[in-house]
């Protein structure tokens, strides 16, 4: 009954408390992870999902993964921040399935949740000078000093905080009866590294190629090839941040074995080369 929600997993990447001034100014950032902010004093602004959000004390903000956003602080503000990955079923995102709010009033205990999250995840503070070292550390730490209590408590707190933003409504698909087509999204997510031609997907749905392309476009408002490419690049962004794999390995893993084609496509979609993306994206 909560099928999608039951399979939701959350993985913390960063957590910390930051005092930020006017140097907090970034344009057109896109990340493979979601961010949560809780502002305690001061003001700032964030632009995403086509709106400006004024960051103000006493509110929580959610910035979903893979959304373009810009950050801007005029003078000074302090914030708790958390970033995390989310996944439902195999490689799907909860944002594809459910609608979300992006700003909610904080309750009395939210500050405690954030404080506790930071307290039990001391190694998750962003030290922006050496982003790479930080990634490597957070990935390899799994081997030593793992604390099951803190891990599970972190999972719990993330779930509570994330719960504040989720709405009951499903994401509207543009089309009508697309029960079958939703399955093809999962199929795509699971088979990114393989050949995903229209012929293959149409056969999977028992549709003719024409009929498949048309229904896909009608349901999701995007052509299947473009959608697949987007998903390949999203997966690549994810792997760039979460693994130490080489670009070549990553390219192969997302089904774009030709590395120069991979780099070109990546740049076209993200606006940045894969190598630069890996280097830069931790600066916030």
């Amino acid at each position: 009954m909560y099928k999608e929600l039951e399979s939701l997993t959350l993985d913390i990447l960063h957590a910390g408390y930051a005092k930020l001034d006017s140097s907090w100014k970034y344009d057109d950032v896109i990340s493979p992870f979601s961010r949560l902010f809780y502002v305690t004093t001061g003001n700032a602004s964030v632009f995403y999902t086509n709106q400006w959000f004024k960051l103000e004390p006493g509110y929580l903000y959610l910035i979903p993964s893979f959304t373009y956003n810009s950050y801007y602080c005029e003078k000074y503000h302090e914030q708790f921040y958390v970033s995390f990955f989310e996944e439902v079923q195999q490689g799907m995102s909860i944002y594809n399935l459910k609608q979300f709010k992006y700003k909610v009033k904080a309750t009395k205990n939210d500050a405690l949740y954030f404080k506790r999250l930071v307290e039990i995840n001391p190694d998750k503070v962003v030290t922006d000078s050496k982003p790479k070292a930080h990634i490597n550390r957070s990935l390899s730490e799994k081997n030593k000093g793992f604390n099951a209590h803190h891990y599970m408590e972190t999972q719990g707190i993330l779930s509570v905080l994330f719960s504040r933003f989720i709405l009951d409504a499903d994401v509207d698909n543009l089309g009508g009866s697309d029960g079958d087509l939703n399955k093809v999204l999962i199929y795509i997510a699971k088979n990114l590294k393989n050949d995903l031609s229209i012929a293959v997907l149409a056969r999977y749905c028992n549709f003719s190629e024409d009929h498949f392309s048309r229904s896909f476009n009608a349901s999701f408002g995007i052509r299947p090839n473009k959608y697949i490419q987007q998903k390949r690049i999203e997966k690549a962004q994810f792997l760039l941040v979460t693994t130490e794999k080489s670009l070549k390995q990553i390219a192969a893993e997302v089904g774009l074995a030709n590395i120069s084609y991979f780099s070109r496509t990546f740049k076209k979609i993200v606006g940045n080369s894969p190598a630069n993306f890996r280097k830069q994206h931790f600066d916030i």
Partner: protein
Amino acid sequence: MQDYLKYLRFFLLNIDLVKLDASWDYDNVISPFVRMYLITSGHAYVYHNDKKFDLKPGYMYLIPSYTYSRYKCELQHEQLYISFMEEIGNGLSVFSFNDFRYQIKSSKLDTYYFKRLLEINPNRSLLDDNPHKYKSFSSFLELKKTRLNSSFYLETQGLLKILLSRFIVEGNRSSEKRERRDIDKVLVYLLENLHENLTVERLAAFSNLSKDHFSRSFYEKYKMRPNLYIQSKRVERAQLLLHTTNDSIKAISEKVGFDNFSYFSKVFKKITGKTPANYKKEQSQV
């Protein structure tokens, strides 16, 4: 490596704040669900895992699923209680991966977590103090129908995780752990195939071990022979199904891998001390 914890899921059964008196006196309880108590006043006792736990204010208590327990209250006490089921992936239990304490000091925040859970999960009290009127398997089906909104669902999952995390004992059994992991794979396989013909040969083949070698290492790690283990898991699954479905006992016996119904009843009785029918009737009493 510890990723399995992120697949931990809960199904909340009951939650309430109740005042209990000397009629809270039950023997030989064994349930397919987990119980958690936070005592707000008074005194009582619980016996389980060969220990007597003195229930007193300011502490929280955990009683894992499938644990024989005895409950007794001499005068009266008041408790916030939660019962829930938990699962990791396909039928695995967190209690087979981690060690837990059964009693810990509770903080002000813990009380808040309980109260918040109660607030967002109303109408989940045990319906009647009279145990014979309470049929937990049918009310379980009712519960399934009461759907929380997505937000409260996620919050409930989160709060239960936070609460349960407080009881975890950090494993300093790291040397054992790796060995356990290989065997754990067999456990997953076993649980996923309970309804099939599970022989020691098949499990040995799955583990790439000879039959003898497999039986011996299994026994060393679990102090239980594989066949007995399979049977006890089948019976546990049957107990769960007796609680959570209206399936006939015969249907359940088939679902848990017994072709022969009378053999199922015999094994069930050997392990739980009760026939499946009696179990279904009596189990709902606490």
